[in-house]
């Protein structure tokens, strides 16, 4: 764990002092090191939660999944960062600023699943907002500034509610370590636990992108540089989800399942419905993907509300793999062909490698068979029918709307309106490597759920 936190601390001074030409290789080394260490830590959590520094550092199975998603995104975005800066023709000092902010953002996300203290976790979540806001505003266009400003204001205000939640939980027991709070949940002052849970749902729900606190998400995710959009969608949302899940676990242990589950069910369903209906009116590729992220976060929250953490976390991992690749692929075409779906129309013929990844990822992200999101979405649907046929029918209808609207918009992007357009230059190889890796993982997860992942998820389910 210490090694994992030391690695970014070594990278950041290196990014400050190394010559410009060494920035990309050092980012790659940092990304690879972080991924290797995270895989090792995840393997160790199969035997049980890891604790260090007198319990200050704590990693359980769910934390390990979040850590893996963050590490994977750091690794993927390191590759595409170079291509992004090359296309921007960024001068060396601007490129250095990008790599420093990227490293800082990565460090703040990496530390979140490792901390047992809820106040420190809150501080890191705020830090992820602030470091990523400067990356969202990186291009300094009016749209980028608008997205960054909304992001900081809405999320800071929202997350301040989560701090109030932490305060109430502290007042309910007198300490801030969530494993201790979970262990002693039965003796907590119940009205304050209930209040803390509602405030945390609003607060961390803002950062997760739950409706109606979601307004910042489509803006920030669509205007950020594409490698950062991928990190925001594939990793940052998971780190905020971690806070929501911790409060949900404590609230369930203290108050029973009814109120916590019903609250998450409501927010999940609302998010899914609003995102589903918004998909049909989107004209920009990355904005469409951002609304799809809200839909997925809604579905994950809904699965938690259905007392199905196994399915929720499986959905989270699958979302990370597919959405990050889609954002990276979208980054390949935004600068070459244009931001809107119609400008980039026919991408399957114009940029075949990027096009194939968009085809495969687009099909997967709707939860259609036989790809990796199908088992988790189908499982959530089954669970909803089991709970109530009406709920199941409503969920089935919403998922059908998502499928039809997303595929309708996506086919505009993939296929040309008339005759096949001429071929364009494909993205550079540094952009294609993370895409191919992401797609390889997508196919692998479609064929099987690897045993270590199953064991992690089963351990969480039992817990």
């Amino acid at each position, binding site marked *: 764990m210490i090694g994992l936190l030391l690695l970014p601390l070594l990278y950041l001074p290196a990014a400050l002092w190394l010559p410009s030409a060494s920035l990309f290789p050092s980012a790659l080394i940092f990304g690879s090191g972080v991924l290797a260490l995270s895989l090792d830590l995840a393997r160790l959590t199969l035997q049980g939660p890891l604790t260090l520094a007198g319990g200050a550092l704590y990693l359980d199975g769910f934390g390990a999944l979040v850590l893996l998603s963050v590490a994977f995104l750091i690794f993927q975005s390191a590759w595409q960062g170079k291509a992004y800066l090359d296309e921007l023709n960024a001068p060396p000092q601007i490129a250095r600023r990008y790599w420093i902010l990227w490293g800082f953002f990565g460090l703040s996300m990496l530390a979140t699943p490792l901390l047992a203290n809820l106040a420190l976790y809150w501080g890191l979540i*705020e830090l992820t907002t602030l470091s990523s*806001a400067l990356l969202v505003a990186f291009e300094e266009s*009016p*749209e980028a*500034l*608008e997205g960054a400003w909304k992001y*900081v204001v809405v999320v800071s205000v929202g997350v301040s509610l989560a*701090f109030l939640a932490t*305060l109430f939980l*502290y007042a309910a027991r007198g300490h801030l370590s969530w494993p201790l709070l979970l262990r002693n949940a039965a003796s907590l002052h119940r009205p304050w636990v209930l209040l803390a849970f509602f405030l945390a749902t609003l607060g961390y729900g803002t950062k997760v992108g739950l409706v109606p606190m979601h307004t910042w998400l489509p803006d920030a995710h669509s205007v950020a540089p594409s490698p950062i959009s991928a990190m925001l969608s594939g990793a940052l949302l998971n780190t905020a989800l971690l806070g929501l899940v911790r409060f949900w676990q404590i609230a369930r242990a203290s108050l029973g399942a009814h109120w916590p589950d019903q609250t998450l069910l409501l927010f999940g369903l609302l998010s899914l419905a609003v995102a589903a209906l918004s998909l049909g009116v989107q004209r920009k590729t990355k904005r469409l993907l951002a609304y799809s992220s809200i839909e997925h976060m809604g579905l994950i929250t809904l699965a938690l509300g259905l007392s199905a953490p196994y399915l929720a976390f499986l959905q989270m991992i699958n979302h990370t793999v597919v959405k990050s690749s889609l954002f990276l692929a979208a980054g390949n075409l935004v600068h070459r062909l244009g931001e809107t779906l119609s400008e980039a129309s026919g991408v399957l013929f114009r940029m075949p490698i990027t096009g194939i990844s968009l085809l495969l990822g687009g099909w997967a992200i709707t939860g259609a068979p036989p790809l990796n999101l199908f088992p988790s979405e189908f499982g959530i649907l089954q669970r909803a029918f089991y709970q109530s046929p009406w709920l199941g029918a409503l969920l089935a209808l919403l998922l059908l709307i998502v499928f039809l609207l997303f595929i309708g918009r996506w086919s505009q992007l993939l296929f040309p309106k008339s005759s096949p357009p001429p071929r364009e230059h494909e993205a550079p190889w540094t952009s294609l490597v993370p895409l191919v890796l992401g797609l390889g993982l997508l196919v692998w997860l479609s064929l099987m759920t690897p045993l270590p992942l199953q064991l992690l998820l089963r351990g969480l389910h039992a817990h």
Partner: protein
Amino acid sequence: MILISECAAACFLLSTFWLLGTRFFLSQLLAYQVQSWALALFAGLLAAMLHEPSLYLIALLTVGVRGLWIPHLLRQAAQALPSRREQLWLSIPSSIVLGAALLMIAVYLSFQLLGPNPATQITGSAGFGLVLLGFFLTSSRPEAFPQALGIFTIENGIFLLALAIAPTFPFLFEGVVLLDLLVLSVVLRLLIQVLAERLQNLLTHHLRELRG
């Protein structure tokens, strides 16, 4: 203790209504600064009454970060702005009336949630009041500068609530918040400066490119 809580609550709320009732950036900043100094003074008095050394340190840090550092950064930002006063969506009298209504809700919340101790209830009322008025300021003002002050007012309200609910809360709590405030103030200062340079104003309702 009750008298101190009453005086402090009056000071916090008057400064917040001052913030709500003016459209001049520097006057808004001064109101925020008064609020922050009052907060530090209250923490210092509480430290003396409870004999809590960590609260003295928190009071000092509150002066440094909330009372000096943040106003310094925001004053720099305000001086770079093309205008000295803000445009409003909602008139000042309407803002004051709505603010008073929110204060009623804050008092109700405090009396319902924070137990029978009158000093806790009064401090809690002011804390909830600052949080709600901060939300109101952030959402009702069209310009970036008062929106930023709204966020800082919410943070002051949360600190006050922490003092009301758990006066001997660990130093870590306030340490994390102060660190967050330091970074938040730098990021907001940078964004305000770039917004002013690129858009020639700070009207966030001019930011309408991203819709749907």
